[in-house]
C-alpha cells in the first residue's frame, strides 16, 4: 500500500515536472565491440557539458538516455524508435558511424525530432537529401581527407601511396584526398576491414618509390598499421599522412610509433581557445584520459542544444523556432569559429595535425598549420531546405 502511494506520488510529481518543460536527450552511439572507445568519448564529452551546465540544458532540468547501437543497423533502428516513441526525446544525439546514421535517420527525422550527429557526417544527407531536422557538429566525412590532400599538395609530395579498407568510407576518403592533391598517386591499395598484418602492403610501399603515404585505417587497424609501418623503418623515408588513424583513441596504443605522423582535423587537445583548454583539463581530471575530436564534438552538441533551448525559453513545441535557434549556433565552440552551412553541416577551420608527446608523457595530436579557413563541404549547394 505504502509502495503504491509512493508510486502515485512519484507519478504526480513526474506530471508536474513534465509540464515545466523538462528537456529529454536520447543518445545513440556505439559502445560495444572494438570501436566502443569512440562512443565512450562522445558519451563522456556530452556528460561533461551537462556537468558544466549543472545538469540543465537551456536552464531547464534535463535527462540524458544513453543507448548502444552495438554497430548493428537493426539495433540502432529499434533504439531510435524507442527513444522517439516511448521516451519522447526532444533531441536525439547520434551516431558515431555513418551506417548507423542511415538506420536511425528516417525514424528520428520523420517523427519531427531533431537529430544531431556528434561524428557521422555522410555525404548522403549533405546534398539533395539534407533534412530540416538533421544537424551535424563534426564535419562532412570527406573533409579531413580533403584537408590532408591540400596539405600534401602544399608540402610538395610528388608521389603518394594510398591505403584504405575496402568499403564505402575507404573509397570516400581516397576521393577526398584527390580533391586538392595534384601529384602522382603511385598506387592505391584496398585491404579487408579489420585487416591484421600489413607487411604485404608495407613491402609494396617500400618498392613503390613513394615519398608519402596516405592512410585511412580507423581504430585497431590504425594501431597495427602504424606500429608495423614504424617497425619496417619506412617512416624515415616516407612521410606518413592519415585520417582517423592516429587520434586520441588510438594513440595510447601507438605512442612513439606514431611520432611525427601527420593528420588533419578541426581540433586537437592543444587548441588554444580558452574554452578548449578548460574542457581538456576538466575532461582529463574527470575521466582520466585525453579527449579526442569525438568528445569535443559531443560537448559542442550539448552546448548547441543548450543554446537552442535557452533561445526558445524552453518551449520545444514550436519546431520552426527551435530549428532557427539551432541554425544560429549561438554557442562558443571549443574549436573556435563555428557556424552552420545551408545543409546544417558545419562551416569551420581545418588544420594539419601532427603526433607528439606531451610534457606529461601522453601522446596526442597537436595543431599545426591552418589549411582552410571557414571551410564548408562541397555538397551543400545541392541542398535546398
Amino acid at each position, binding site marked *: 500500500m505504502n509502495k503504491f502511494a509512493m508510486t502515485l506520488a512519484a507519478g504526480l510529481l513526474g506530471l508536474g515536472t513534465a509540464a515545466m518543460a523538462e528537456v529529454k536527450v536520447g543518445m545513440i552511439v556505439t559502445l*560495444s*565491440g572494438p570501436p566502443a572507445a569512440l562512443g565512450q568519448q562522445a558519451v563522456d564529452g556530452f556528460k561533461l557539458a551537462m556537468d558544466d551546465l549543472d545538469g540543465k540544458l537551456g536552464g531547464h532540468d534535463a535527462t540524458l538516455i544513453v543507448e548502444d547501437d552495438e554497430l548493428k543497423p537493426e539495433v540502432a533502428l529499434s533504439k531510435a524508435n524507442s527513444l522517439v516513441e516511448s521516451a519522447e526525446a526532444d533531441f536525439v544525439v547520434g551516431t558515431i558511424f555513418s551506417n548507423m546514421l542511415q538506420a536511425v535517420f528516417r525514424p528520428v527525422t520523420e517523427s519531427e525530432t531533431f537529430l544531431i550527429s556528434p561524428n557521422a557526417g555522410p555525404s548522403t544527407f549533405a546534398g539533395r537529401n539534407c533534412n530540416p531536422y538533421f544537424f551535424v557538429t563534426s564535419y562532412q566525412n570527406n573533409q579531413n581527407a580533403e584537408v590532408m590532400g591540400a596539405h600534401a599538395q602544399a608540402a610538395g609530395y610528388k608521389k603518394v601511396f594510398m591505403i584504405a579498407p575496402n568499403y564505402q568510407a575507404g573509397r570516400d576518403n581516397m576521393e577526398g584526398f584527390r580533391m586538392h592533391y595534384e601529384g602522382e598517386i603511385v598506387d592505391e591499395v584496398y585491404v579487408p576491414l579489420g585487416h591484421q*598484418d600489413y607487411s604485404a602492403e*608495407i*613491402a609494396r610501399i617500400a618498392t613503390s618509390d613513394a615519398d608519402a603515404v596516405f592512410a585511412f585505417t580507423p581504430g585497431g587497424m590504425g594501431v597495427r598499421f602504424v606500429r608495423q609501418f614504424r*617497425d619496417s623503418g619506412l617512416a624515415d623515408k616516407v612521410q606518413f599522412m592519415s585520417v582517423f588513424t592516429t587520434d586520441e583513441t*588510438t594513440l595510447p*596504443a601507438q605512442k612513439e610509433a606514431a611520432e611525427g605522423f601527420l593528420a588533419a582535423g578541426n581540433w586537437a587537445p592543444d587548441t588554444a581557445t580558452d574554452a578548449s583548454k578548460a574542457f581538456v583539463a576538466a575532461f582529463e581530471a574527470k575521466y582520466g584520459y585525453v579527449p579526442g575530436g569525438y568528445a569535443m564534438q559531443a560537448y559542442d552538441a550539448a552546448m548547441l542544444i543548450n543554446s537552442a533551448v535557452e533561445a526558445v525559453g524552453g518551449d520545444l513545441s514550436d519546431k520552426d523556432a527551435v530549428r532557427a535557434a539551432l541554425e544560429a549556433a549561438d554557442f562558443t565552440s571549443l574549436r573556435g569559429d563555428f557556424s552552420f552551412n545551408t545543409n546544417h553541416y558545419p562551416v569551420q577551420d581545418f588544420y594539419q595535425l601532427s603526433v607528439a608527446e606531451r610534457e606529461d608523457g601522453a601522446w596526442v595530436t597537436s595543431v599545426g598549420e591552418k589549411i582552410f579557413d571557414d571551410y564548408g563541404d562541397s555538397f551543400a549547394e545541392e541542398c535546398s531546405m
Partner: protein
Amino acid sequence: MSTTLILIQILNGLQLGVILFLIAAGLTLVFGVMGFINLAHGVQYMVGAYLAYWGYGVTGSFVLALLMALPLALLMGLVLEFLVFRHLYDRDHLSQVLATFGVILFLNQLAKVIFGPASLSVPPPEFLDFSFTLIDGLLYPAYRIAVIVAGLLVALILWLVITRTRVGMLIRAGATNPDMVSALGVNVRQLFLIVFGFGAMLAGFAGVMAAPIFSVEPGMGDNLLIVAFVVIIIGGAGSIRGAFVAALLVGLVDTLGRTLVTDGLRLVMDASSANQIGPAIASMLIYVLMALVLFWRPEGLFAARAAR
C-alpha cells in the same frame, strides 16, 4: 612486380601461415578428436594476447609475460572445459555452436570491462628489438623471424608428441575412431581434457606471439577463427600435419593473392576497375581454395578420420 617483392611477400605469407597454424593446431585436435565445434577457440587466442599485455604490465618483461601467460591460458582452457564444454560433448553441433558462441560474447565483453574497449599494444622483447634490412629502406623486424621460428618449433614438438608418445598415439586413435578407443578402456574424458587444455594453450601462445605485431583488442580472435576453420577443413580435421601444410598454404595464397590479383587485373583492365575488383577477388581466394579442396578431397588433404 619485382622478384624482390615476391620474395618478401613469401616471407610475409609464411609468417601469417605460422600464426594460423598455432591457432588451427588446437582447433583441429578438438574438432578432429572430439568432433566438437569450439567457436570459442578464437577467443582463447585473444585471452593469450590480453594475458601477455597484463603480464608485461606486471613484470615489465615480455619473456616473463610469456612464461606467465602459458600456464594461465592452459588453466583457462581447463576451467572452460570443466564449466561449459564437457556438458556439451554428447549434445548436437547446434548446441555446441550456441554455447561456445555464448562464451565468445562473454569473454569479449569481459575483456572490455577489465581492459577497456581501446586497442592496446605490447612491445617485443628487447633482445629481439632489432631489424634486418631486406631492401634499401625496408626493414624486417627480428621479432617476426622469431615468430616464424617459434611456430616451426611448436610444429616439430607437436609432431614428435603426436607420433612418438603414448598420448599422441591415443590422440591419433581418437581422431580415427573415438568409439573404439573408448571401448578399449581408455579414459576418453581425460584425453579430451588434455587435448582441450593444450589446444587452448596453443591458441593462447599464438595470442602472446601475435600481441607485439598486431593490436590487442576485444574480438581480435573472431576473424582469425573463420580462417582457422578454413585451414582445418583444407588440412583435414584432426590432422596436425594437415593443419601445418594448410596453414602455410592459406597464408601464402592470402598474402600473395592480395598483391598479385590486383596487379594481374591491371594488365587486362583499367586501374580503377582493377582496384575495385582486385581486393574483392583476393579476399575470396582462400575460400575458393577451400572449395576446390572440398571438391577433389572432401576429407581434406590429410584426412585423419576414416570416412564414415
